[in-house]
């Protein structure tokens, strides 16, 4: 269930990731890296709730969006710097999480998934229509504090590292055992003394906190949000699930890998392999991602990390045959 984190490997990854933006000192690539890190946070958070605790949320956009809007509204309504949203965004997401948890956790399986999906959509509709409070479809625009992308990079890097570290700690504790027990068999878990409702909510709290924080970061970094972007069913909620699947659910580094792969593939296609491939390739970046999803579910159902042994075998077999 939980392999001991290869301490040295993780430190190397952290150092590399920390140094990367200094080496690749180009705005465009730094933007991609920041994007990837945002998805590391969203994907890992989703994975804690869905992959480890078995509650497959189809509405994580609700938490991302509310974090983003907390930051934005603090600026538009209270004239506070949106940076306050970085602190408060996570907490408003947690409060929303309690509400959604209360409504949805009584449901199981597909009903739970649908209920979370609806929650995300309802928030989008509220944000769209409550113009007095949220500026509606027009969205919120702020002045970005920094011109350079470096501070933003290190901030989201810190959040992502903290997120993964917290998940690591949690999964290697009593809570981790309890989360997986809830996933495997809720009724058996209750008979073993596990307060399933409590632990589902704990998992949700952590998951929503980090997702909300990522949302607040997004507000500060991009400078502009609107309901169709941050509460998007397809671009946030479902994307989070796909990141988890491609990387591997219920693994620590899976969503991180999935995030990098996703951003990478989409960019690869959008730029038509950086200009090397014919123009029409760039139109198909989302299609490429869709195909990747279909193929991953069919052949690598545990994701790149989860099915790594399988992948190694296929690659290894090829090299042996070459000999």
């Amino acid at each position, binding site marked *: 269930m939980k392999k001991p984190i290869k301490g040295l490997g993780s430190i190397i990854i952290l150092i590399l990731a920390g140094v990367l933006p200094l080496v690749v000192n180009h705005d465009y690539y730094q933007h991609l890296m920041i994007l990837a890190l945002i998805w590391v946070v969203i994907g890992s958070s989703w994975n804690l709730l869905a992959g480890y605790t078995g509650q497959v949320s189809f509405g994580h956009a609700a938490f991302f969006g509310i974090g983003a809007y907390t930051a934005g509204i603090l600026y538009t309504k209270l004239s506070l710097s949106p940076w306050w949203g970085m602190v408060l965004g996570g907490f408003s997401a947690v409060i929303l999480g309690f509400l959604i948890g209360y*409504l949805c956790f009584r449901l199981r399986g597909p009903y739970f998934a649908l*209920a979370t999906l609806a929650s995300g959509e309802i928030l989008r509709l509220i944000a769209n229509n409550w113009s007095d409070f949220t500026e509606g479809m027009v969205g919120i625009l702020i002045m970005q504090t920094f011109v350079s992308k470096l501070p933003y990079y290190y901030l989201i890097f810190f959040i992502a590292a903290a997120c993964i570290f917290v998940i690591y700690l949690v999964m290697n504790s009593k809570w981790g055992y309890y989360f997986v027990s809830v996933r495997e068999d809720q009724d058996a878990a209750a008979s073993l003394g596990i307060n399933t409702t409590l632990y589902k909510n704990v998992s949700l709290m952590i998951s929503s906190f980090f997702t909300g924080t990522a949302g607040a970061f997004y507000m500060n970094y991009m400078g502009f949000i609107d309901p169709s972007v941050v509460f998007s069913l*397809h671009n946030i909620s*479902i994307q989070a699930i796909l990141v988890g699947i491609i990387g591997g659910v219920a693994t620590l580094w899976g969503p991180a890998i999935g995030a990098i792969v996703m951003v990478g593939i989409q960019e690869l296609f959008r730029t038509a392999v950086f200009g090397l491939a014919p123009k029409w390739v760039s139109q198909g970046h989302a299609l490429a991602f869709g195909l990747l999803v279909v193929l991953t579910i069919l052949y690598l*159902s*545990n994701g790149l990390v989860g099915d790594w042994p399988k992948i190694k075998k296929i690659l290894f077999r090829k090299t042996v045959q070459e000999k």
Partner: protein
Amino acid sequence: MATIARILILAGVILIGLPYALVGIGMAMGTMGINDLFQMTQTIVIGVLIGGLYALIGIGMTLIMGVMGIINLAHGQILMTSMYVTFVSFKYLGLDPYVSILITMPSLFLVALFIGRYLLDPLIGRESILPENQVLMTVGIGLCLTEIMRFIFTSNYQSVRTSYANKAYYIGSVSFNYPLTIAFFIALMLTVGLFLFLMKTDIGRAIRATAQDKEAATLMGIPQRKITFSTYALGSALDAAAGSLLLPVYYLFPDLGGPFTLKAFVITILGGLGSTVGAILGGLTLGVYESLGATFISMGYKDAVGMVIFLLVLTFMPGGLKRVTKI
């Protein structure tokens, strides 16, 4: 007989009784007048007509859900694809959308059969951490369909203007929009056809049996896997028909699928998972109340109606209308 009576009474209460009651309350409170009463009749008529289309979409989804036990999150995208096929038939073959049903239903039936056989079937019984594998596969499929259509047609809005698009038929002062009315009757015929199919044919009975109890059906010699992906194809074919019927009255663009998938599952949840009668009632209800929302509140809140219904059902009546109609 009692069941039919119960269903009709329920339909009457929800579709006619409740809206008029709301107007009555409004009039008593002084916020609504006699004009609104007339508006209400027109609003209900529009709602029922489009509700017929919604019902068709809902039946497709609930059939799939009943037999396969999965939420087909590609349902809206199948609808969208069918609309594009209809669009092409109209633009390049000059075919009236309603005639295009003869093209869209079989072609999307085959596409769905392929999807069911090669993409969904392999996942059954496959060991995975997330039980929602099939559902997520439909997400991937929906994504691919959307992007393929965008690739071919770009994101531009398309529409179709038939010669009779603006004509209407009048009963008293209530207008029945031609395209919608024709669509409603075709949807009605398809629904009746479906019922006959499910009740009278062997395959239909096999489908119902599988929906009730997969294992028992297998023990009775029903090829479960074949029935499963055939049902996916059947549900998608009904969806495709709805697409052709919808094109004359709706704008078409690649991202159309999402909102309609949402509508489809609101209808399904409202009607009760697996209940075709429930889906019909659910579709009509959604149609009427969206219409009410659009007329009396604002266009923007039309989509919210579905979400509100969804929340209400989940909170107060998780089994859906099926609990009351008992089919």
